[in-house]
């Protein structure tokens, strides 16, 4: 079939210019509407919290324990508990997550299992073993990535149940049997350590995915340049790849951490306390937590109306903490970026 290049009837199928412009306007308008809607929702939430909460903030509120059935006093133990929990979670999740991502991206083969299988099929006798290793590693990488993606989709309450079943009832009880001759319970109950580990599991997918994404942004030529100078793979990773990926890794870490800081479901059964007159002393202590405090103030209090000001104040502090955390992340990232540009 041939087309006559001078046949003007063909162009009549193209819609009129005006109609196309109209469609374009509607499209852009819809996009703008969704942005405005999101901003509006965010504004309402923030406005509500600030209007009702900011007034309740005082030095006493952030430095004292709750009193009078939580209708008065402050939230100091909850602030401290949340801080410890988040720090511990970070210490547990970061090395594991970054390590897993570096292994996945830098050490396992870039081939898909299918490609690796094809290479194995075509390999000569002497190269069979190497090709088989490549195939098995690519399977491992594929499996791990699928597992990580699925982990990210697991509801947080399931992580809480897992923490209860695995850390407390399995690991904790075993530790108690080994270390407590008279059958006391020390590790076989919720505490700071188990709650932090449970939260770390929850944030792990975020950290792994973000780190792998950051590693992908380091150009392949830099790796080749380093290898060609006689650097080993590990030296290349430590001196070239990780520094280059650092801003991205930090972003991911902070996203994960600030998500973890606000999660309540995973710590419900793994260590958060309704009310404690003292601060956590070590890893086996229970603790109060801002998010959990909000939950109990709004649902478990005998007088919900009387706790409302405290409730708003607590939410305000929780938001402020998360915001500060994000801000720190952004600042660190900006600093590392400009340092990299100027060649520090």
């Amino acid at each position, binding site marked *: 079939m041939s087309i006559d290049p001078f046949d003007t009837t063909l162009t009549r199928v193209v819609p009129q210019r005006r109609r196309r412009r109209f469609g374009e306007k509607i499209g852009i308008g819809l996009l703008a509407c969704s942005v405005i809607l999101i901003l509006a929702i965010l504004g309402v939430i923030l406005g509500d919290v600030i209007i009702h909460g900011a007034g309740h903030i005082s030095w006493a509120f952030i430095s004292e324990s709750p009193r009078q059935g939580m209708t008065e006093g402050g939230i100091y133990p909850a602030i401290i508990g949340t801080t410890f929990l988040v720090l511990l979670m970070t210490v547990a999740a970061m090395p594991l997550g970054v390590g897993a991502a570096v292994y996945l991206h830098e050490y396992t083969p870039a081939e898909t299992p299918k490609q690796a299988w094809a290479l194995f099929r*075509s390999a000569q006798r002497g*190269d069979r073993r190497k090709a088989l290793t*490549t195939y098995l590693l690519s399977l491992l990488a594929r499996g791990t990535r699928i597992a990580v993606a699925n982990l990210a989709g697991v509801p947080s309450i399931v992580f809480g149940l897992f923490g209860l079943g695995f850390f407390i009832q399995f690991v904790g009880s075993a530790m108690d049997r080994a270390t407590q001759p008279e059958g006391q319970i020390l590790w076989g109950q919720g505490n700071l350590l188990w709650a932090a580990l449970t939260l770390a599991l929850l944030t792990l997918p975020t950290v792994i995915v973000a780190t792998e994404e950051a590693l992908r942004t380091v150009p392949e*030529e830099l790796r080749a340049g380093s290898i*060609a*100078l006689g650097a080993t793979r590990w030296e290349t990773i430590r001196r070239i790849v990780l*520094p280059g990926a650092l801003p991205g890794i930090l972003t991911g870490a902070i996203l994960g951490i600030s998500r973890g800081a606000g999660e309540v479901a995973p710590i419900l059964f793994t260590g958060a306390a309704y009310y404690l007159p003292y601060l956590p002393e070590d890893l086996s202590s229970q603790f109060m937590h801002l998010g959990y405090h909000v939950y109990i103030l709004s649902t478990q209090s005998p007088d919900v109306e009387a706790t409302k000001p405290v409730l708003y104040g607590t939410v305000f502090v929780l938001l402020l903490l998360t915001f500060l955390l994000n801000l720190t992340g952004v600042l660190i990232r900006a600093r590392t970026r400009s340092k990299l540009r100027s*060649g520090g």
Partner: protein
Amino acid sequence: MTVETRETRAARASASQDETPPGSTKIAVRDFNFYYGDHHVLHDITMEIPAKEVTAFIGPSGCGKSTFIRSINRMNDIIPGSRARGTLTLDEQDLYAPSIDVVALRRKVGMVFQKSNPFPKSVYENVAYGLRIGGVRDRRVLDELVEQSLQRAALWDEVKDRMGSSALALSGGQQQRLCIARALAVDPEVLLMDEPASALDPIATQKIEELIYELKSNYTIVIVTHNMQQAARVSDRTAFFMMGKLVEYDETNTIFMNPTEKLTEDYITGRFG
């Protein structure tokens, strides 16, 4: 890890440590074949590359010349499914023997890439990189070797006042010479250059070519180029590759003035490619 003394350094500064006399065989290749999976990239390459001369590889895109140059420092190892058959020796040592230390080999055979790839670090740290991973810690030794390498790469005068600023702020030509300085810092004997000037303007290209001419008194240089005039200008010997085969290899003058093969003549006169 090697510890450098003042004496060994002085000895090295005066002349490159490579004792191979110019013109004698540095790299010998016999029936060398290379594969990526099912793909047979290089077919029975046999050639000898002389020491302290410039050998140019020319040929149409996809002819295997880049793969071949990357076989000499085993950069192809990174690619899974790649394998080599036949022998490739450097100073009569088989580079594909199981006992070979690939990391040590790559310090002996430096490489400059088509796209300049300075690290996102300072000018100083770029040149010091290979020395640092080689275990040189002494600041004075580092300073001296960095300056010497930059001088050898004809870049010192342009960057001596901005050693601390980012290498990425240099011009394209300066970046490529920085990559050459970086490769020279670890004191290689062979320098592989994979189209080192293909992304540069004519003036920067000329500087690189002058540099190659100066460097060949101390280093064995192998250069891949798409630019026929460049091969004619800088090289002593030229190898013409096509479809993974070495078609002709001879003195550059002979290749360009009086080639034996019809294919070579057709390519050089621009009848294809």
